[in-house]
């Protein structure tokens, strides 16, 4: 909008109206290429003869306008705008012999190719959908299970079932909590069951560590797991009113004993 002085061909009223219509419908576009293809139609020429320079200007004008209207454009629209601005400068300026890379013409030709290819695919999609279709224009046998003599059961599955099945297992795997060292984990359920059996004998205050299951005291990994689960189980039993628990000072020993049955449930 700002650089009208550089525009050789002033934007016609109809084009401007078209651009406005485009802006209102910005969400309707499937990305910059779709937008470019729509813009290219205003040139009313064969896509093979399209002026990429003019198209770049149209696109940049569109983006400017969107900005002026404070429309939020997705990043890829802005990336395309930057690239087209670069392309425009390449097309307008005489080629710099010291510069590497493809010429503006090559880049423009490729963009034109992309647009033509997209348009071709859209045309083909339309032709495909216009074909006679099974279940709409022509039909398969309506009654397929007419003969039922032998009853042999066979099993079937589709590739999709197979892949979804695999995906299911692998996803479960991915999100499964860390279970590699299962043999070094003493679960809360195990501890609870064990403690229920033991508390009957815990009339006196006893150290939590003395309640650890056999064989779990020496190995630090196993001891940590057993300690944690036994402690958690003890808290659960306190909650249930079967056990009392105390700790004399921070990091001090944790002691347990059976709760007196008189004030218990």
């Amino acid at each position, binding site marked *: 909008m700002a650089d009208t002085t550089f525009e050789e061909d002033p934007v016609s009223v109809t084009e401007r109206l078209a651009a406005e219509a485009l802006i209102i419908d910005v969400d309707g576009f499937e990305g910059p290429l779709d937008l470019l293809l729509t813009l290219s139609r205003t040139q009313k020429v064969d896509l093979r003869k399209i002026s990429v320079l003019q198209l770049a200007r149209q696109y940049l004008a569109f983006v400017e306008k969107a900005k002026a209207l404070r429309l939020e454009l997705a990043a890829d629209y802005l990336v395309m705008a930057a690239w087209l601005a670069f392309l425009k400068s390449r097309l307008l300026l005489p080629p710099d012999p010291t510069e590497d890379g493809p010429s503006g013409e090559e880049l423009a030709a490729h963009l034109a190719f992309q647009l033509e290819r997209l348009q071709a695919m859209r045309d083909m999609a339309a032709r495909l959908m216009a074909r006679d279709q099974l279940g709409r224009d022509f*039909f398969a046998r309506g009654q397929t299970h007419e003969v039922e003599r032998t009853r*042999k059961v066979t*099993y079937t599955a589709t590739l999709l079932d197979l892949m979804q*099945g695999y995906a299911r*297992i692998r996803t*479960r795997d991915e999100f499964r909590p860390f279970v590699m060292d299962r043999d070094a984990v003493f679960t809360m359920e195990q501890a609870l069951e064990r403690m229920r059996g033991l508390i009957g004998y815990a009339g006196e205050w006893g150290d939590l560590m003395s309640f650890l299951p056999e064989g779990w005291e020496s190995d630090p990994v196993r001891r940590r797991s057993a300690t944690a689960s036994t402690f958690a189980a003890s808290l659960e039993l306190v909650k249930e009113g079967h056990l009392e628990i105390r700790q004399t000072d921070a990091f001090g020993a944790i002691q347990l004993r059976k709760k007196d049955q008189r004030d218990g449930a």
Partner: protein
Amino acid sequence: MAHEDDQHGQCLFEAPPMAEQERMIEAVLFASAEPVSLRELEARMPHGCDAGEAMVYLRKRYDGRGVQVVKVGDAYAMRTAADLGFLMQKETVEVRKLSRAAIETLAIIAYHQPVTRAEIEEIRGVSVSRGTVDQLLELEWIRFGRRKMTPGRPVTFVVTESFLDHFGLENARDLPGLKELRAAGLLENRPPPGSVPLLGDGDVDEETTEGQSELFED
């Protein structure tokens, strides 16, 4: 059959030629799930058609063919000729969906072959029932592979040619990896409630793919 030829001429629109009417009832009978009565046929056909007459021609045309036009009550239906029933065995088999356990086991074998039973159990996280493996063996979708050179020399399972055939695969190596399954929307990326998603899941897939191609190399 009712002859109403004289009325045809008086019709505003001429009825299609009889050969065309015959084609019409042929197509309708073929595509219908239920037998169709002459009245229903005429209701569907252009004005002035005579389904009864067309039916006479159609039945004659199918006389002695592999497919017959039979009268069922007041209606008509197409049926395969009774003497060819022996060819229909494939239509009569009851096709059931493979159980989830079988599909998962099959998937693991396809993706990880050659794989031992213990490895399958490790991946699935549950033990594999004998019935599941037997079923897959019976379907000829898996077979025993080479024994593994590990203690106990366990047998392995691999997928068969008929597996590839059934699933339209040229090669088990063409099975898409996790990343590709995810990209196709076949893998829900939703972690189960309460669990923390692990980061860098991409590595898992790469390992799988590599492992796979390695395993498939001969």
